[in-house]
């Protein structure tokens, strides 16, 4: 199948999902289950990702900016700005493409190759409404929440790394963090995560929903879902930065 056919098929699936998003009764229960799986269950890994990203940023920045002419508060400013505007969103999304995206593609792919999707359709269910809509909606809603977690732990991790390595005092770090902060930074982060949540859940749903060929096919669709999600997230990150900053 060529790229244009894939895009057309993906667009058709999204159109069907949009059209069937009014069938709340069909997907209400699985929507809440997906919110838990995508959001709550991802909190530990996002906390770790955010924490270590912030910690490494502080240590590397203090190493690179080790000069009497550069105030230590600059490190706080660099770390917090980088976390809020870029790293909390992008690194978390790449991790979530592996965790959430792979799970969605595998679940739906297995359901497809074991005829569970056909079983849903034959009972009179709208399988897109039942399987795709709750996952995409939950992703759109929960990714921005996870951005908050990643940001808090990222900035906090940077602060703690500064304290424990003795490179940046708390007061300097916090002063730097406050110095360049604007609400737009946060809004931009939320917009990114909203878009990334949509990209990862919709691509993974698409790859899983149309999986073919048994266990190997499910494996292939999961790999494709993860790789393609990561690539499109990076592309979207570039486009959003070029458009909105």
């Amino acid at each position, binding site marked *: 199948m060529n790229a244009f056919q894939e895009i057309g098929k993906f667009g058709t699936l999204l159109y069907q999902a949009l059209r069937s998003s009014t069938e709340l009764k069909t997907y209400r229960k699985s929507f809440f289950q997906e919110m838990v799986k995508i959001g709550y269950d991802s909190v530990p890994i996002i906390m770790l990702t955010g924490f270590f990203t912030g910690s490494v940023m502080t240590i590397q920045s203090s190493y690179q900016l080790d000069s009497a002419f550069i105030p230590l508060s600059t490190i706080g400013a660099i770390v917090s700005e980088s976390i809020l505007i870029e790293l909390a969103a992008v690194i978390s999304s790449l991790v979530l493409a592996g965790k959430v995206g792979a799970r969605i593609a595998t679940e739906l792919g297995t359901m497809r190759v*074991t005829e569970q999707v056909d*079983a849903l359709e034959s009972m009179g269910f709208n399988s897109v409404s039942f399987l795709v809509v709750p996952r995409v909606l939950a992703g759109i809603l929960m990714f921005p929440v996870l951005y908050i977690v990643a940001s808090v732990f990222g900035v906090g991790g940077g602060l703690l790394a500064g304290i424990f390595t003795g490179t940046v005092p708390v007061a300097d770090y916090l002063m730097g963090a406050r110095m360049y902060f604007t609400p737009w930074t946060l809004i931009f982060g939320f917009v990114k995560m909203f878009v990334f949540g949509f990209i990862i859940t919709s691509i993974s749903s698409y790859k899983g929903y149309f999986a073919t060929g048994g266990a190997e096919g499910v494996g292939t669709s999961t790999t494709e879902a993860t790789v393609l999600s990561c690539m499109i997230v990076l592309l979207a990150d570039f486009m959003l930065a070029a458009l909105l900053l």
Partner: protein
Amino acid sequence: MIEIKNLTKSFGDLLVWEDVSMTIEDGETVAIIGRSGCGKSVLLKHINALLYPDEGTVLIDGANIFDQDYVTQRKLRQKFGILFQGSALFDSINTFENIAFPLRYFTTMTESEIRDTVMDALEKVNLENVHDKETAELSGGMRKRVGLARAIILEPEYIMYDEPTSGLDPQTSDEINKLIIDMAESLGITSIVVTHDMHSVLDVADKVAFLDEQRLSWHGTVEDLRVSDHESLNNFIKASEYQI
């Protein structure tokens, strides 16, 4: 009544079959037979529009299932119950919830009514005390029965069986065949059975359709089958080591 008219289906360059036409009258049990890979299951999935043909129509009680809006098509699909080849039970929920699943979404039954209906369906397929088992704990024969209980739970007019006895021992196969006959007789359901098990065909079917060489090569009653001089059909029967 189901009327299949001039169906042709290809996957890319691969022609599955062409110009397939047949009529299935109410209350009949029709077996679709043929070699592995001849497109029996593909034909079955066209009957309730899980797959679409390149050409042709399928009329369900006079309505072309391919030419309906989505809501009407879903209502037509609900006239069918399907027992899938691998049973297609939802592995994230237990046996009871699998059977109760359509009731929760398509009926206004109370919890106790749902429980009674599910237990009744399990009794019909001769399964008791498995309602709280996970689907992974069920044997192949049990999975088929649970799949059948789920297929009949909304009281369909038609039931389609995709290889109902494949992978089962002869004794369990016999039990499944008896269930197919019971369903047809006690519920008055029109049945379509896809199989290559001639033992099953002669046990359950009123009529037989033979797919061969990418077309509907032969169709007729079981009595016609016994006296047929159709060469490839007779070869197929002979190869299945079944003596008519």
